[in-house]
């Protein structure tokens, strides 16, 4: 019960978000990237955003991270409005973006150093390295790591601040199929034992069905929400089960339809 009061503050609400960007060739005109998006993520829920490329998934994620500000509309975490980036909302990109000049340990510590709390929380660094299974690589530099290892460091780096919300922008997109499936389980494990609210942007429909509580399908130009689908399958999910494939068919059909409507 204590858990729920804590996590209630970590739900995300997106209300009527519009975002446009200047067109590079014609500075006077602006291209609408997001045209009035509304949805919400309950505390400790894992929601995936899928949609054709260019539909504004990453733009939306950056807005929730606070790295960009919307033209209009409201973004809230709990009851607080998002006005800029914060350690409360961790972000992991497709490229792990590890700081190459820091070791694995240095990268994981970065959030504590940035907030000036390294001294008090140093003991957590080892805990997070264990959590992602990288104790043996504490002193390695990022260029020595494989793609999967680097992404695990990026996850640990984002999680060490105990963010209320973890934003994942195609975090497994650059990995090979086997590493990718293993990492999906790993992210699920982290999510299950930390109960962090997660918003996952992905191209991979199987990944979305395998991992999420709910899938939000977007259409492109300008980005709008087409449909939300609850994935009410028990975990761990069977990637070849009938109901899994039924969800897959449904979403594919939707994306196809979405693609036609935009064209």
């Amino acid at each position, binding site marked *: 019960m204590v858990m729920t009061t804590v996590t209630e503050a970590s739900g995300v609400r997106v209300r009527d978000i519009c975002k446009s960007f200047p067109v590079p060739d014609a500075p006077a005109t602006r291209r609408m990237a997001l045209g009035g998006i509304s949805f919400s993520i309950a505390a400790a829920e894992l929601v995936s955003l899928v949609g054709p490329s260019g539909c504004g998934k990453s733009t939306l994620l950056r807005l929730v991270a606070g790295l960009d500000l919307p033209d209009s509309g409201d973004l809230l975490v709990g009851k607080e409005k998002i006005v800029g980036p*914060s350690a409360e909302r961790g972000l992991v990109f497709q490229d792990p*973006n590890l*700081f190459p000049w820091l*070791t694995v340990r240095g990268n994981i510590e*970065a959030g504590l150093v*940035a907030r000036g709390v390294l001294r008090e929380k140093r003991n957590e660094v080892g805990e997070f390295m264990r959590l992602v299974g990288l104790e043996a690589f504490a002193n390695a*530099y990022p260029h020595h790591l494989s793609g999967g290892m680097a992404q695990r460091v990026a996850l640990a780096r984002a999680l060490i601040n105990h963010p209320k919300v973890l934003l994942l922008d195609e975090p497994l997109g650059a990995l090979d199929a086997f590493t990718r499936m293993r990492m999906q389980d790993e992210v699920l494990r982290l999510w299950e034992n930390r109960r962090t609210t997660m918003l996952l942007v992905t191209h991979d429909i199987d990944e979305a069905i395998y991992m999420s509580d709910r899938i939000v399908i977007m259409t492109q130009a300008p980005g709008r929400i087409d449909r939300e689908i609850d994935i009410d399958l028990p975990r761990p999910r069977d990637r070849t089960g009938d109901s899994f494939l039924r969800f897959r068919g449904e979403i594919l059909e939707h994306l196809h339809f979405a693609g036609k409507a935009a064209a």
Partner: protein
Amino acid sequence: MNANTAPTPDPPSLPWWMQLAVPGASLITFGTHLLIAQKAPPVETRSYMLLFWEIIVVSIVLAIAQRFRPALRKWMRHMWPIFTAAILLLGVWDVITVGLHLLPLPYFPGPAAVLRNLISDRELLFDSTWHSLVLLLSGYILGVIVGLVSGVCIGWSSSVRYWGMPLLKVLGPIPATAWIPIAMVVSPSAIMSSAGLIALAVWFPVTMLTASGISNTRASYLDVARTLGARRLYLIFRVAIPAAVPNIFIGLFMGLGASFLTLVVAESVGVKSGLGWYVSWAQGWAEYGKVFAAIIIMAAFFSTVMTLLFKLRDRVLVWQKGTIKW
């Protein structure tokens, strides 16, 4: 350092011809010298002979020691061809100058004469090197500090860039030595004005490369840092500056080259000490042996300083190891 566990099988000794290369080359070069010296006017060559005796003895000792020291063997395998070539080049120099008189004397003395000058004038040469070192370091360090500060400011803040960049673009390309007449009038002492000129020569490349490194920091590094709770000081000192360090080192190397040039010119026209002054002084007395002696010292001095900077780079940029080569 056990040869048995080394990844590639390492033979227990260098091949015999490699062991004999350096002493052999020494014998050839010194033998050539003796042949030439019979025809040429008698010069004092005891120091030259001693040099070769030392090289021969040391190389024989090393040839024996390498059987027991794999690390030494590896180093010798790498360096011996270069040493051999260098010793043979001394012989070629001897033949061209003293032997065949292909180059006019007294402007091109032979290696034995240069060595004699190197030894006889060692006190003044040492003193000059010391003065050059002090002047170089004070100018270089000043230029680097100012260059780093201005480079970070120009690279980070767009308003500083607006005002700073034109200034940099107009003043930077002027060779620092062009300011010598003005520097001499403005500054109370020649040493200070020379240090200032060296600093100016260093300042330009360091500022330019630092600024471009800072402003080209990958935006995603800054984004990640922001979502980790970073404020401006963290973004500048722990993201932008580390990301710019490879660029900064290019600026440091370019600045070092510029500082050598400025040092030598400034010393030969203004300051009455240092290697640059020594060269022009020896030229005034037509002592070309001393000119070459000073040039040899400069080569050793400047390349040592350059090597130290490379070592510093390798330490600082250890995280880049294997990703770049230059």
